[in-house]
């Protein structure tokens, strides 16, 4: 279009309906564009990554070497999926075997603030060195600020072998 022609048009004030249509369109379009950007951005940032092949069990210990009744700290290699990185890392667990061959594997962090606790032989308790939380041999909180019992790994027993899986979130 030739702007010179435009300049000959009389400069009329916008009619109120026209003006309000313009304003409505501006707000509407900007809101729509904003939503079209904000919603995917929210999903992108807040949705967890699609499930990858995690939750595999790794063989962690020979059960015949674990004493009955006394927790044993075992270490094992497992695969960790950390964003775009897949790494093999050393992990540890406190394993308790009962007389009837039931096995529990506790995650090695105190449920209070994540310090590494240890087994205190004289008191027969798990004791956290940070804020003196104490847990019984079956993971229950005995004293201290810990808000919940010790976290457990899922376990599978195959013959004499103990396989450790991901954290048991249903416990």
């Amino acid at each position, binding site marked *: 279009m030739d702007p010179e022609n435009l300049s000959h*048009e009389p400069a009329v004030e916008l009619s109120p309906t026209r003006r309000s249509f313009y304003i409505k*369109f501006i707000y509407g379009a900007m809101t729509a564009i904003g939503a079209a950007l904000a919603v995917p951005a929210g999903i992108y940032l807040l949705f967890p990554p699609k499930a990858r092949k995690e939750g595999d069990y790794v063989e962690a210990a020979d059960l015949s070497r674990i004493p009955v009744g006394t927790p044993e700290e075992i270490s094992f290699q497992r695969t960790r999926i950390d964003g775009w990185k897949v790494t093999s890392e050393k992990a540890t667990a406190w394993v308790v075997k009962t007389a009837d061959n039931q096995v529990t594997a506790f995650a090695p962090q105190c449920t209070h603030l994540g310090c590494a606790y240890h087994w205190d032989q004289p008191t027969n308790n798990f004791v956290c060195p940070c804020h003196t939380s104490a847990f019984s041999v079956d993971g229950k909180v005995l004293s201290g600020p810990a808000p919940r019992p010790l976290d457990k790994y899922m376990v599978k027993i195959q013959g004499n072998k103990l396989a450790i899986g991901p954290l048991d979130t249903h416990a």
Partner: protein
Amino acid sequence: MHKIVEWLEHRTGIQTVIKDFLYEDIPASSGWHQVIGSMAVFSFIIQVFTGILLAFNYAPTPGDSYLSVKYIVTELTGGRLIRGLHHWGASIMLIIVVLHMLQVFLYGAYKKPREATWMVGVVLLLITLGFGLTGYLLPWDNRAYWGTVVTTQIAGQAPIAGPYLARLLGGEGRIGVVTFARFYALHVLLLPPLTMILIGIHVYLVRKHGVTPAVGDTAPRRKFFPEQVFKDTVGVTLGFLILFTLAIVADVPLGKLADPTDTNYVPRPEWYFLFLFQTLKFFKGPMEAVGSVVLPGLAVLALFLIPFIDRGPLVRLGKRTFAFAFAALAAIAWSGLTAAAISTTPKNTEAADSAVEELQAWQQLTPPELEGLGHFRKENCKTCHVGAGKRGIGPDLTQMAAAHRNAGWMVPHFKRPSQIVPGSSMPPVQLTDPQLNALSAFVLKLTPQNEASLLSAPDFAVQGASIYEANHCGACHQINGAGMKMGPALDGVGQRRDRAWLEQHFVDPKSTSPGSIMPPYKFEPQEMDAMVKYLLQLPKAG
């Protein structure tokens, strides 16, 4: 709400600032042709927004960057869209910037007193190109790597400054962590704030001199808001719709991880640089720097100085014949060179795949070998043969002596270990001969490189292959080179058939393939599932 606005206004004067901005007087002749500038600003905002989102999940180092981009597009919900917006947004931003410039050029809006506005605009065009150039490397696939190799070499050809420029880009011919870090720093640290500052100056200058009125426009001036803002919004919305559609419909390629030893890859720059790439072909030997650096440099200089070259008074659009002819000539030259570059580009052998699935080592196993992996697992071989370069109770199977690397030694050893290896504490493996053959076939495949991948084969594949073997499918079909060719080879069958087709085919082969001589197979649902899943993932032959 009203009170908050009032409080804010009293403390900051923000409302007055916004009102001054919106109710600025503009010439009556302003209109649709002036919306492109707003669109350019908007496209920059989109790039900043999506760029920040990408950076939240991006590892700015070679190698890791590739993995993180792959992670963004395959693992994160919406990641493909965000990357698409950023990728196509870059192209669209450049198109808009060039169109904006073209409009200003054709209208002669760079003339006194608006020379500085134009010159800042030229710098913004160069920065936009700089964004494209530096961003191109960041996914670190073959396309990125090889494209940037060429770019840095070209920079190195510049007279006098060449070697310094190459060193500044961390290249000097080789591209590695240093070049990557510099490109990343330019792309996210230096160029964005520079662009913001220059856009600020640009817009300030536009406001200072006012929008260029048409020749003889003496009509009463109008307000910027809401009519012109409405027109700008229409333009912005249109641009955004195109971008959004592209991001959803068109896949952004992510090729293979950058491989400096790949001699088959044909490097090409991004489409808007293709004309420069093609120009280079006309200059040989010592003249090359003329085509790569001198000519583009002169062209930029000419563009920069246009307001001083064309100093005549503003005339109406219809009389700017020379400007139109010049723009048309430039457009024809650009299109011709770009088309020539595209037509002479051989198709890369590397599939520009968006699926980005790399073939896993276990997918290349034959069915008997996969079945062998099943036995390997059931017999708990790994308990003693721990692998990963270590010796457990038994030796590392990837490091076996050459003399033992055959089924003739291995199968008897499975049956009576201590007879073949005196003193061995390995218990006899209680399997049938065919099963032992499968087990040995698998063990013979193990190497230190593929061990982890082979052992990670999913259960469905192992089970599917075991069913395949138990039903002697290999008597007619071939997978990964093993089996007969009475029936069709099953390599890549998942690209030809879907799940429903395969299931129906097992139940009643003739219903899907008339004339087939294959007998029907009845599988338990769980077996069928494993079988079909196994078949669907089979890679294409060769």
